[in-house]
């Protein structure tokens, strides 16, 4: 199992130096002398290593970037990253070794006479670990570099990371293959009454074990790892977030199994649903609605489709079939290497830092198809998630676990 890929012949190869050169070309065009990346998505995309602690990447106009992370994790990040030990520094609570001093020195070394433009990443996100620069960091750096001008420049990374390269796509494919292994293990465990006595956390754990055995680095989602819901928890109003609880699985109830695996920062994310038999006619009606809607949705993705156009078509279909009130009216979210979750496309919509509903998909963009059906009054709901690679005239659905809602 490769930890990092440095050979262009490797199917998981990512040309990180090329990415850095692309950032440098864009910063030059924008008159930025040095770029300070703080967002998790930026760190994954430039360093190629998972950075769970507050970390920074300083990208000068020329040459290699320098990453800074908490000292207890610096050697490991250097080992995992393409950058190596000389370019990954640790910070800690010691004289001149705190993060602000190290960053100010590093950034300052690229500013002639302390003058110049520093690109920063500021904004807001629905995703808690987004990692925009904090007010405190910003104010401290401004005080330490009084002649420098700070310019919000996060859109450089967002633009460059929008279209996925082959190595990234293959990492997502592998993460999806691993997620399917998790789903098969869950199915084996719960079928033929095997679910009796099991809890949501147990389902999450057995899936995690199977996926780890297959090479998953972790159940990456910040929403509680593997999200498992049974009974009324599947159908929270407008809900699509269910960290597993100690709730027991029960006959006659729905079950949602939403698994997450990570492979070299590529993300697997697939949700599958069951009816724990005996299922009522009404439950089966809900299940058929949902499966038919997902099937329809998957035929629609292609370059040129927009989230809003897709939502119109799918909501019209659900209205015709009489289940529109159970649909959460959004059908996908953005995705990229670890830390790049939620917003689709660029920050160019009517609401700042949210998906532009009129964004037109391009070939080799990736999204997570994310469909939530919620009927709290009847204590039932379903979720579908699957990484989608947009193609010129269609899409690739990465998780291959068969689409169905089985009564078991």
């Amino acid at each position, binding site marked *: 199992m490769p930890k990092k890929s440095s050979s262009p012949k490797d199917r998981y190869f990512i040309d990180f130096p090329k990415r850095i050169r692309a950032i440098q070309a864009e910063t030059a065009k924008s008159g930025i002398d040095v770029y300070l990346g703080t967002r998790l998505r930026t760190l994954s995309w430039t360093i190629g290593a998972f950075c769970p602690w507050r970390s920074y990447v300083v990208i000068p106009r020329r040459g290699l970037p320098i990453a800074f992370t908490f000292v207890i994790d610096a050697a490991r990040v250097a080992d995992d990253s393409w950058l190596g030990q000389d370019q990954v520094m640790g910070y800690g609570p010691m004289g001149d070794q705190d993060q602000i001093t190290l960053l100010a020195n590093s950034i300052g070394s690229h500013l002639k006479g302390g003058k110049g433009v520093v690109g920063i990443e500021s904004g807001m996100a629905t995703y808690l670990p987004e990692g925009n620069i904090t007010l405190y960091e910003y104010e401290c750096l401004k005080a330490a570099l009084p002649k420098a001008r700070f310019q919000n420049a996060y859109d450089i990374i967002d633009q460059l990371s929008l279209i996925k390269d082959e190595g990234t796509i293959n990492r997502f494919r592998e993460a999806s293959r691993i997620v399917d292994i998790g789903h098969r293990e869950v199915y084996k465990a719960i079928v033929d009454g095997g679910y009796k006595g099991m809890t949501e956390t147990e389902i999450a754990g057995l899936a995690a074990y199977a996926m780890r055995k297959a090479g998953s680095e972790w159940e990456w989602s910040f929403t509680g790892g593997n999200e498992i819901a049974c009974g009324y928890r599947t159908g929270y*109003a*407008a809900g699509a977030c269910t960290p597993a609880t100690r709730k027991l699985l029960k006959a006659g109830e729905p079950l949602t199994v939403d698994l997450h695996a990570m492979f070299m920062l590529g993300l697997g994310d697939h949700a599958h649903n069951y009816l724990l038999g005996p299922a009522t006619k009404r439950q089966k009606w809900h299940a058929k609605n949902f499966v038919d809607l997902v099937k329809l949705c998957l035929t629609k993705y292609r370059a040129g489709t927009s989230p*809003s156009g897709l*939502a*119109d078509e799918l*909501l019209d279909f*659900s*209205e015709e079939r009489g289940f*529109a*009130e159970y*649909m*959460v*009216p959004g059908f996908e979210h953005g995705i990229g290497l670890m830390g790049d979750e939620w917003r689709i496309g660029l920050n160019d919509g*009517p*609401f700042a830092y949210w998906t532009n*509903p009129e964004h037109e998909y391009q070939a080799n963009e990736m999204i997570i198809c994310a469909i939530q059906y919620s009927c709290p009054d009847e204590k039932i709901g379903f979720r579908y998630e699957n990484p989608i690679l947009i193609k010129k005239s269609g899409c690739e659905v990465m998780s291959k676990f068969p689409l169905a809602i089985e009564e078991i």
Partner: protein
Amino acid sequence: MAVKKFKYLSPEWAEEVFKRANGRLTPEKMKHVTSSMLTLNKNCPDGKDRAVYYEIVDGVVRKVSIAEGKLPNAEFTITADYQLFAKISRAELKARRALMSGKMKLKGPLVKALRLSPLVDRLNEVISTIPTEF
């Protein structure tokens, strides 16, 4: 015979909305919902702001009235330009799309609003059948 047209946002138009809503929207279709909604049309052709007040009890449309000046309280208040509401009333634009574009504002609990939005679409569909003069 010429079809009678109702002037948009007139008391007669509101009465027609009430009649058609009760004729076409069953409590089952309206999911037995109980709620109230105010659609505030800004910049009407006469320069005024004018609102439509809807009261729904157990899935039955109980009241449709036009309000000006001091507006009644409602669970949801939806505000947009007159022209935008006119487009929705002619079924040229869906309320959800208008909300997502930021051109229409919603005050009220969002979780409940998301659940009710297909019901509002159904009401708008009924409104779009009324021969209306804008």
